C-alpha cells in the first residue's frame, strides 16, 4: 500500500511539473494583462527544440537553452501582434498553436526522419538529494527527482516574492489592472507587457523541454496534448497566484497519475475513459470554482493610448 502511495505521489509530481512551470509563466503574463493562449504551441516548440539541442550537442542543458530561446522567439511574435499591433489575443494565440503544430511536425521529420530509429539523446537524470530522499513516503516522491522538478518547486516562492514584494512585480500587477493609470505615473506599459510575455514564453519552453526530456526521452508529434491549456486553466483555478497554481497543478497532475495507476491495475474500466480523466477533472475543477476571482481587470484587453 505504501509503495502504491509513494509511486502515486511521484507520478503526480512528475506530471504536474510541466503544468506548474508553464502556469508560473502564465501567471506573470496574465497579471500584466496578456492571456497567452499560445502556451500550448510554445510548449510544443520547446519540447522539440530541446530534443534537437540535446541531439546536436549531446547535452540536455544546452537542449533546454535551445528550447527556451526558440520559445521566446515564438512568444516575441505573440507579443508583437498582441501588444504592438494590438490584435486580438485569442486569435493570435490560436494562430501560434496551429503554426507550432505544423512547424514541429515538419521540423521533426526533417531532422529525425520519420522512419528512422529514434536516436538516443541526453535526458534529465534522477538526482536524489542525500538524506531527504530517505524520508518515508514523501522522500521518494519529492527528493528523488530530476533537476527541473527542484527548480520548478523553487520557482513558486520566488515568483510570489517577485510579484508581491518587488518594484517590478508591483508595476506588473498594476499594468494588468489599469494600464492607463500606469501611463500617468510614467510607467512604460508596453515594455512591462513585453517582458511578462517573453518570460511566460521562456517558462513554456522549459516546461516543454521537461515534457520531452524529463518525462519521455524523445519528441513525439503533438505530445503536449492539451497541457498548455490545462496550465491556463491552472492559473484561473489557482486564482492567479503562484501558490494557487502549485495546488492546481498537483490536482490536475493527480488526475493523470490516477489514470496511469488505474490502467496498470486492470480495473476493467475502458482505457479511453481513463485517459479522459485528467481533462474531466480540469473541466469540473474550473466549473466548480465559485469565489471571488483575482482576475486582473484589464486581462486580455490591448492598451490603446
Amino acid at each position, binding site marked *: 500500500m505504501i509503495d502504491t502511495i509513494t509511486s502515486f505521489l511521484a507520478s503526480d509530481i512528475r506530471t504536474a511539473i510541466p503544468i506548474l512551470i508553464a502556469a508560473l509563466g502564465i501567471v506573470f503574463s496574465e497579471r500584466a494583462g496578456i492571456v497567452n493562449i499560445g502556451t500550448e504551441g510554445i510548449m510544443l516548440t520547446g519540447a522539440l527544440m530541446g530534443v534537437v539541442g540535446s541531439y546536436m550537442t549531446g547535452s540536455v542543458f544546452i537542449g533546454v537553452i535551445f528550447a527556451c530561446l526558440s520559445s521566446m522567439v515564438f512568444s516575441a511574435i505573440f507579443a508583437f501582434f498582441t501588444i504592438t499591433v494590438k490584435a486580438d489575443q485569442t486569435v493570435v494565440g490560436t494562430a501560434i498553436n496551429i503554426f507550432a503544430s505544423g512547424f514541429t511536425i515538419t521540423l521533426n521529420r526533417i531532422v529525425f526522419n520519420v522512419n528512422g530509429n529514434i536516436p538516443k539523446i541526453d535526458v534529465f537524470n534522477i538526482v536524489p538529494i542525500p538524506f531527504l530522499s530517505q524520508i518515508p513516503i514523501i522522500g521518494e516522491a519529492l527528493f528523488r527527482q530530476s533537476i527541473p522538478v527542484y527548480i520548478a518547486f523553487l520557482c513558486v516562492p520566488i515568483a510570489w516574492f517577485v510579484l508581491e514584494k518587488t518594484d517590478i512585480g*508591483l508595476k506588473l500587477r*498594476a499594468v494588468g489592472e489599469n494600464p492607463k493609470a500606469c501611463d500617468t505615473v*510614467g510607467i512604460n506599459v508596453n515594455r512591462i507587457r513585453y517582458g511578462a510575455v517573453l518570460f511566460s514564453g521562456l517558462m513554456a519552453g522549459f516546461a516543454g523541454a521537461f515534457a520531452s526530456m524529463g518525462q519521455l526521452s524523445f519528441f513525439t508529434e503533438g505530445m503536449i496534448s492539451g497541457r498548455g491549456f490545462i496550465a491556463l486553466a491552472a492559473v484561473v483555478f489557482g486564482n492567479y497566484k503562484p501558490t494557487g497554481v502549485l495546488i492546481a497543478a498537483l490536482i490536475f497532475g493527480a488526475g493523470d497519475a490516477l489514470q496511469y495507476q488505474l490502467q496498470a491495475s486492470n480495473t476493467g474500466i475502458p482505457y479511453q475513459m481513463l485517459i479522459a480523466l485528467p481533462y474531466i477533472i480540469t473541466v469540473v475543477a474550473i466549473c466548480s470554482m465559485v469565489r471571488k476571482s483575482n482576475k486582473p481587470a484589464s486581462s486580455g484587453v490591448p492598451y490603446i*493610448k
Partner: protein
Amino acid sequence: MAFLEMRHITKRFKNVIANEDVSFQVKKGEVHALLGENGAGKSTLMNILYGMYEPTEGEIFLEDKKIRIKDPKDAIDQGIGMVHQHFMLIPALSVIENVILGMKDNKAVLDLEVAAKKFTKMASKYNMEIDPWKKVEELSIGEQQRLEILKLLYRNAKLLIFDEPTAVLTPGEVEFLFKVIRQLTAEGHTVIFISHKLTEIMEICDCCTVLRQGKVEATVLIKDVTDKQHLASLMVGKNVELITDKEDSKPGKVILKVEDLNYQDSNQLNLLESINLEIRSGEILGISGVDGNGQSELIQCITGLKKSSSGRVMINDHDCTGYTVKQVLNEGIAHIPEDRHKMGMIKEMTIKENLILMSYDKSPYSKKSILDWKWINKHSEKLCKLYNVKTPSVDEISGNLSGGNQQKFVVARELDRDPDLLIAMHPSRGLDIGATKYIQSQIIKYRDKGAAVLLVSTELDEILEISDRIVVMYDGKIMGTLKQKEANRDELGLLMAGVI
C-alpha cells in the same frame, strides 16, 4: 514672473484642431482657472502639459526655463502633477502601493513600511488621513480624490492640475477640497483648476483663462469680475440666460405613485429602502444626490429594467409592479436614460433608425411588419427640425453628431411619443451651456403641457432651477422632500451627505 508659461500651443489631431495658438501664464502660488465648455480644448491643453500628448507647435516654460515634456514621466520629473477627472488609481492594489507605483527612486525590493510612515505623516499634515494598507476599492470617492492629491504631493509636485475635480463630490467634500487647495497655495504650490462651473471658479480661483473652440478667449482676474454672466458670455461667445424662466407649477392628478419600494441586489445589499414618491401632472420632481446612492436603481425599478424586491409602482392609478419594459412604456412613460451612449441610442445606426427605436412596430411607422421608410423619413426630418438637431441629414450615423445634438434627438424621440410621465436622468450631462438650456427648456415646456416629469440629476444648479419639488436620496433612502422655493444649497448639501 510667471511660474508656468505655455506659448503658442497648437495641437492638431488629423484634421481637427483641438488647440490653436494658445498662450497663457500661471503665477506661482495662485489658483488659475481654465474655463471652457466641453470640447473647448481644456483637457487637451492640460494633457499636453502633462505629457499625454505632444503639441504640434508651441513651447512650454517652467520658471523661465524652456522644458520639453514627451511623456508623463518628464512632467513628474518637472514637478507637474495631475488629478484626472477619472481617477488614475488601481482598485485592486493597496493605498500605499498606489502611492509609490512607478516612482523612480523605488528600490528593487520595496519597503512599504517606510513609505507608509512617510505617507501617513504627509496625509495628517493636510488632514487627509487614509489607512495606507486599505485597498483602494474600499475607499469612498472623496477619499480616492484625496489619495490622488497625496500621490502627487508624495512625488513633490509643485504644480497641481485638477481636471473637473468637483464633478463627483458632495457639497461638503467640495468645501473640504477647497480648503486643501487653499492650504496648498499658501505653502507655495501652484494650482490649475479646470472647470465649467462658474460658481466654483468665482469662489476658489485668482485668475481665469477662458478657452473657446480651442483658442484663448480672455484672461481675467477674478477680483475684477463682478458677475458670473460675464464669464458665461466669454465661455459661450454670446449672451446666455443663466436663469431659466419658469412659471409656477399647477399640479393635477397623480401620475406616478411609488409605494414602499425596496430593492436588493444579488449580494443581498439594500440598494433601495422603502421609497415613497408621488408625482402629479404638471410638476417636475427633481431627485438630487451624489451618483450611486440608489437613483439608477430607483429608475430601473420603475421602468422595469430591474425587478424590485417589494413595494408597488402605480402609473395612472394602475398597478404596474413587475411589468416588463415594453409594458411600462405602453403605460405612457418616456425615458431619457442616464448613459446616452450605452442606453439612450445606438451609435452605429443612423438618426432616423434611432428615432424609431420605440415605435417601429406601430402604425404608421410600419404596416404588417414592413417599415414605411417614406413616412419615417418625413417624420424624422420633421422631428430634427422641431428639436433643433443639427445634422446633414437623417441618414447620418448618429455617433458622428456632437453630444448635444445626440441628446436632442433622444429627447425628440421620447417626447414625440406624447407620454404622461417623462423620466429624465442626467439630461444635460456632458452638454455645453447652450444645449443644456435648450434641453431644460424643452422639459419645462413639456411640463406646462400637463405632463409629469421625474428629473434625476447630480448637478445642484439644474435641480434647483427646474424642479418644482426636490427629493434628496442618500444610501438608497429618501432623506427629505423640499419645495423649490424653500430649498437652499446648504440644506441640500447636508441631505446629500446624509448628515440630516
